[in-house]
């Protein structure tokens, strides 16, 4: 997977400049620039209400921006009227995984998947074949031929992914695609997204899951308050932090401890939690713990991790990326 940060203009699948979205006067997106090249996987990360879904709605042609210019797959999206055939034709080249899994519940998974492939312009036989091939991987066994009404949340999510991919879109837009998926489903999703990009599709993925974004995205855009905060390859963004190891201490303290340790950057400190990065290869954990204890706090748990995009976001904005910072999906081990 590429980690390019400046896509070639000739291969741009998405080109937005100064994009803005307002909902009843509230700014959901402001002065937002985005470029996504064919074959690239771009992650959009941000906390709830940051503007991720608003951005994805624009890219999926689900709404028009209130400001800016937007070209999608070579077409000026603002020039296409709501009921035009050109807009429908453009939409047939886009695959969408919306944040909610809505289906025709009385139909089977296969019938739903075939319906979406047909809407994308495939002939009946081809639509059935493409949907069938994907269903065999994503909903194996007899599940595909059961009514969707009998599906679990995860199965519905898997079906949405099939519906978005069966017609081999040139642009794939995914809004929190891993929600409700089990570990095997997440792995399969990553594989399918990579395959889609390898075929030359541009992929834009909005998520709260930093681990997922780091694994699959060549470039990420960190969003807050409807504005772009940072953009780059995950590895490059994390490298900006300067630390190679991340320490997270769960505390019980009357107040945020004031800690100074050589070779350690304190990223955040509250009465319940302290996050720090080490600057060199030595282990500053004993010194850090000692300093925290000296500051009057009790240490309940310690985790040693490599820094991730949540830390990048925190340092750039001072805000947590997820609502519950202790309930992340990052791999961690107790120290």
């Amino acid at each position, binding site marked *: 997977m590429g980690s390019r940060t400046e896509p070639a203009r000739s291969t741009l699948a998405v080109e937005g400049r100064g994009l803005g979205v307002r909902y009843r006067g509230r700014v959901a997106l402001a002065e937002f620039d985005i470029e996504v090249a064919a074959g690239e996987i771009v992650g959009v990360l941000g906390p709830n209400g940051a503007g991720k879904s608003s951005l994805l709605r624009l890219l999926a042609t*689900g709404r028009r921006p209130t400001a800016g210019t937007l070209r999608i797959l070579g077409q000026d999206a603002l020039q296409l009227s709501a*009921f035009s055939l050109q807009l*429908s034709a453009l*939409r047939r080249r886009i695959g969408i995984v919306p944040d909610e899994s809505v289906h025709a519940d*009385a*139909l089977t998974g296969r019938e739903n998947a075939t*319906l979406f492939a047909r809407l994308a*312009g495939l002939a009946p036989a081809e639509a059935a074949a493409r949907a069938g091939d994907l269903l065999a991987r994503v909903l194996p066994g007899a599940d595909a031929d059961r009514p969707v009404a009998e599906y679990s949340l995860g199965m519905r999510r898997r079906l949405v992914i099939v519906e978005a991919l069966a017609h081999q879109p040139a642009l794939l837009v995914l809004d929190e695609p891993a929600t409700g998926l089990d570990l095997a489903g997440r792995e399969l999703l990553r594989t399918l997204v990579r395959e889609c990009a390898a075929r030359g599709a541009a992929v834009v993925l909005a998520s709260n899951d930093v681990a997922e974004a780091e694994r699959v995205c060549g470039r990420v855009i960190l969003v807050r308050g409807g504005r772009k905060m940072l953009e780059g390859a995950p590895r490059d963004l994390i490298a900006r932090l300067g630390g190679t190891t991340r320490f997270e201490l769960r505390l019980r303290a009357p107040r945020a401890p004031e800690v100074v340790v050589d070779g350690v950057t304190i990223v955040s400190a509250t009465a319940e939690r302290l996050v720090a990065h080490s600057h060199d290869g030595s282990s500053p954990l004993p010194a850090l713990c000692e300093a925290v204890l000296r500051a009057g706090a009790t240490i309940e748990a310690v985790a040693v991790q490599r820094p991730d995009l949540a830390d990048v976001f925190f340092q750039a904005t001072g805000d947590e990326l997820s609502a519950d910072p202790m309930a992340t999906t990052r791999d961690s081990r107790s120290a």
Partner: protein
Amino acid sequence: MSAIWTAEWRLALRRRRVMVLSACVPLFLVAAVALGRAPAPHAALVYTVLFTFFGTFGAAVPWARDAERGWLHRLVLAGAGMPSLAAQRLLASALIDLLELMPSLLLIALVYRPGAAHLLILLAGVAGALLAANALGVLVAAIAGSLAETALLASVAALLLLHAGGVFRTPEPGTFADAVQHAVPFYYMHSAIQTAVGYR
């Protein structure tokens, strides 16, 4: 056949309980009136109102429900143009309504014994009115903001059009109201029903 049309038929045939209920409820109402020997003008009025509401609600409620849960938006974003989506759903829904009303129409034919020609006119009148009622339902659902609002607006719109179609009163010939009633599809269904039940 197009994808939406096919899906609509599949959905209707899959929901057998709904289909049976949709056929039985009007049948019971028609049976009560027809077998109860209600006067022909009253019977015709009941049948016209019943079939009009059947078509209007039959389209409005599913449309509003599917819009509310985001299904229509998904279909449109998947490449189904809104005019094409509306047309396919409308035609399928009107035809399904006609199928579901067949037992009721059959009972009317058996009880009132209109001639073959009048029966054909009745069939055409009901089919046309169902198409119009479904279109009205879709229009209302597109304007309304919720299911409850849809039901309310659909009732009001259908009653107003029935009134304009001369179902509740006969306008003086040559008046504006007389001209308007001929532009309302429900007028032709009502006339066909009146003829079928022997009022005309």
